[in-house]
């Protein structure tokens, strides 16, 4: 295990300068994610129009892994069809929990930088939090937890 695999430069960058870190005033979907183990908390705002994610942003606090994961999520999904988000949720879940044979790291692009967490079982939930929150938002649920 090498720390560089966990704290990949993309992750360090997104932790220092999280993208889309803001509140959206009139989201069509919003959900809160909470990791009771760490106290990581985030709120994800989504604007979906005609099946397209027009805008997505988040607020909250957490470790570098959870912040970078949320930041990368928003960057990736803006402008994409909502249906693609669901597919990505499944792929990310496989990647982060180490059931990664199905995950196409080339297709995942920058998101693949999060793959290092699979070697750190206590940190997997940090990376999956924003994805669970997205999943909850898309299904009209108010709260997601990693438990």
């Amino acid at each position, binding site marked *: *295990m090498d*720390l560089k695999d*966990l*704290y990949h430069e993309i992750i*360090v960058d997104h*932790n*220092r300068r999280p993208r889309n870190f803001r509140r959206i005033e009139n989201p069509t979907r919003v959900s809160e994610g909470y990791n009771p*183990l*760490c*106290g*990581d*908390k985030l709120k994800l705002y989504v604007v979906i129009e005609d099946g397209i994610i027009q805008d997505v942003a988040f607020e909250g*606090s*957490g*470790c*570098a*892994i959870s*912040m970078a994961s949320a930041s990368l999520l928003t960057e990736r999904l803006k402008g994409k069809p909502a249906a693609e988000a669901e597919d990505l949720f499944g792929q990310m879940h496989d990647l982060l929990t180490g059931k990664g044979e199905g995950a196409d790291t080339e297709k995942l692009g920058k998101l693949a930088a999060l793959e290092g967490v699979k070697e*750190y079982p*206590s*940190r997997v939930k*940090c990376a999956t939090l924003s994805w669970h929150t997205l999943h909850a938002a898309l299904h009209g649920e108010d709260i997601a937890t990693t438990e």
Partner: protein
Amino acid sequence: MNTAANKLKALSLDVAALRRDFPILHQTVGDKPLCYLDNAATSQKPRAVIEAVERYYRQDNANIHRGVHTLAERATAAYESARERIAGFLNAAHNEEVVFLRGTTEAINLVAQSWARPRLQPGDEVLITELEHHSNIVPWQLVCEQTGATLRAVEVNEAGELDLDSFEAAIARRPRLFAVGHVSNALGTINPLSHLIQRAHAHGVPVLVDGAQATPHLAVDVQALGCDFYAFSGHKMYGPTGIGALWARRELLEEMPPWQGGGEMIKMVSIDRSIWNDVPHKFEAGTPNIAGAIGLAAAADYIESVGIEAIAAREDELLSHATEALNDLGGIRIIGTSEKKAAVVSFVVEGVHPHDLGTILDSEGVAIRAGHHCAMPLMEKLGLVATARASMAFYNTKEEIDTLATALQKAKNILG
């Protein structure tokens, strides 16, 4: 004790020899020597404790208080002499004032359910403090919910000390009970217990002390303190997990109804009624953790052989060294700056989340705790989500603290 005398006591410890008593310390994590700085979560076990438990299972294992065979007699004698040992460790007036339980949490729940629940009525108050561990909050929430009583908390100030004005105001309302930690697990604050107990008693309020963090660090004398209940765990004081004790004044225990029913806690059972056993057996339903009690007694012996004052003096030195080393790094804020502290340093590093610190430090062999330390109300009060916490025991070295500092610098370089 003056500082010069303290220094002398700390110097008298042969730390290298003491470290050899703890087999677990001599290992590498990854390829780095283990630096175990998570002693407030649980302490490591000396060979004397491990061997006492092993010896019991190898030679004496039998159920207690019933059998008439030799092993049963040996096991019973060992268990009851462990009780006597713990009574001595706390300077209890009577051996039967010591109830063996799973730990501090179970001890507090026992008092909440058996002593407080029958007494509490709507409008009554139970007083705790904002410094408490969840184990000294939630049992009181449960019993307040059951009885309609109200839970209040003494405030803490920015240094992580109890606000004594807030305490005076709250105790003057004459709550039915004041439950307070001796030493804060999250910040290390040592509370002015004698003063608090004296003031509570002046208002006729009984006091329960959560001593989980105190027994490994301070001499505890329940008679001198004058408290009414004292709860602690074995595993924080170099003993096994799953064993701890409640000390309570005999007359309080005698008044309390049993909490759990079963074998051992009765004198006579018929279908329509039973007669309870005497204290403390009334509160020890079922086969107890016999090996654990024996291990706990061995831990008390071990602490006494090293000397609790020498341990405290040594840990004070380590605390000063850690405080200096962290302040020297810069960009680190120490949370909890009470003048009287156990060897606990809670801190936040600018730009680095405590959980990232935990992972990066682990890659250097350094074990610390990161999170809310089971004290979420305290974290909220201090405006923090989490802290990193290094907690030292007498067997830690200044070199290990320097390794912590180097590892913190690495974390800052990676993420800061």
